[in-house]
């Protein structure tokens, strides 16, 4: 009974919200502040992972799962691969000029003040009655959004079945955006794979095996030239000039 009372006395919703929001914000600040690109990638993983936790708290369980799968498990892994492929020599530091920091802080700070002022300025957004009601009578079925989301993507809005008939025309499914995004992903896949293919660039460093092969090819070319020149000189010295002219004409005919 003591444990139950202790568990009941904690404001769990607020605790988890503060936990996820705190981790998200703190690691986003770490992404901003750190100079090491690999640490930046890992702090971003943590920040986006706790954003998924915020999604779960708000009842968007499918979107939270997709955030973890697509963002954390896909996009950020891709970014880490990019960090690996563009790695320069160790501990290279690219520092930003302090003027840029001051300007960015001024602009970002004013934007933040305006956004937070708007966030706390609207009365209907500060209303906590729905939140308190949800705490009293929470129904787990409400958070099962995967099937309604899937049906909405095919064009059927099962969450708006009993809505006002006058508004029903505007509550459409999401089939067209779904198809557009599918084609968009296909195009992006082909384009990115083509753009990022391995190319032989003029400034690519050549290894020892390559250099040896290039040297051998160069020597073969040189010996071919030497043999050709030697054959021409020998033919001109041994034979007469007329025969040389006949040879040259046959050479041109062969060519």
């Amino acid at each position: 009974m003591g444990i139950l009372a202790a568990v009941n006395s904690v404001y769990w919703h607020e605790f988890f919200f503060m936990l996820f929001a705190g981790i998200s914000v703190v690691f986003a600040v770490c992404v901003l502040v750190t100079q090491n690109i690999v640490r930046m990638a890992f702090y971003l993983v943590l920040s986006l992972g706790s954003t998924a936790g915020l999604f779960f708290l708000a009842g968007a369980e499918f979107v939270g799962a997709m955030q973890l799968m697509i963002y954390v498990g896909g996009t950020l892994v891709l970014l880490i691969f990019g960090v690996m492929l563009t790695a320069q020599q160790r501990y290279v530091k690219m520092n930003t000029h302090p003027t840029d920091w001051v300007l960015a802080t001024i602009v970002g700070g004013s934007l933040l003040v305006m956004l937070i002022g708007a966030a706390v300025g609207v009365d209907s957004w500060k209303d906590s009655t729905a939140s308190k009601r949800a705490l009293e009578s929470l129904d787990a079925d409400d958070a099962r959004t995967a099937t309604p989301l899937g049906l909405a993507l095919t064009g059927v809005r099962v969450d708006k079945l009993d809505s006002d008939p006058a508004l029903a025309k505007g509550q459409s499914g999401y089939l067209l955006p779904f198809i557009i995004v599918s084609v968009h992903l296909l195009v992006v896949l082909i384009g990115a794979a083509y753009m990022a293919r391995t190319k032989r660039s003029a400034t690519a460093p050549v290894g020892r095996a390559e250099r040896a092969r290039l040297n051998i090819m160069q020597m073969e070319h040189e010996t071919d030239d030497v043999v050709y020149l030697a054959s021409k000189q020998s033919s001109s010295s041994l034979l007469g000039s007329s025969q040389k002219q006949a040879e040259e004409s046959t050479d041109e005919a062969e060519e």
Partner: protein
Amino acid sequence: MFGFEITPVIAAITVSHYLIVGAILFVIGAVCMATKRNALGILMGIELVLNGANINFIAFGSRYLRDENLGLDGQLISLFVIVLAAAEAAVALAIALNFYNNHNTIDIDRADELKG
């Protein structure tokens, strides 16, 4: 000061709390895009910005926080934002790799050959 009262932190969570978190992530992402010299750091700023917007959409679409909510619309738009952000990160990474292969540096301050 702005015409609102400082609500205690332990009060019930409202949409405003989510919006503040979204705003902070958005601004941090924007400053990250503005100040990082590594091209991949700029990509990470873009991811933070899109996540801030997603938190806003989810908060407005949550039926636990508001009675007149967006419902599934907020979550669907959020899904599309996630997918489009992944696609855009792939293309931007391909561009960054090409830049690195041609200039042997990932510093975008070196990308100044297109002038005027």
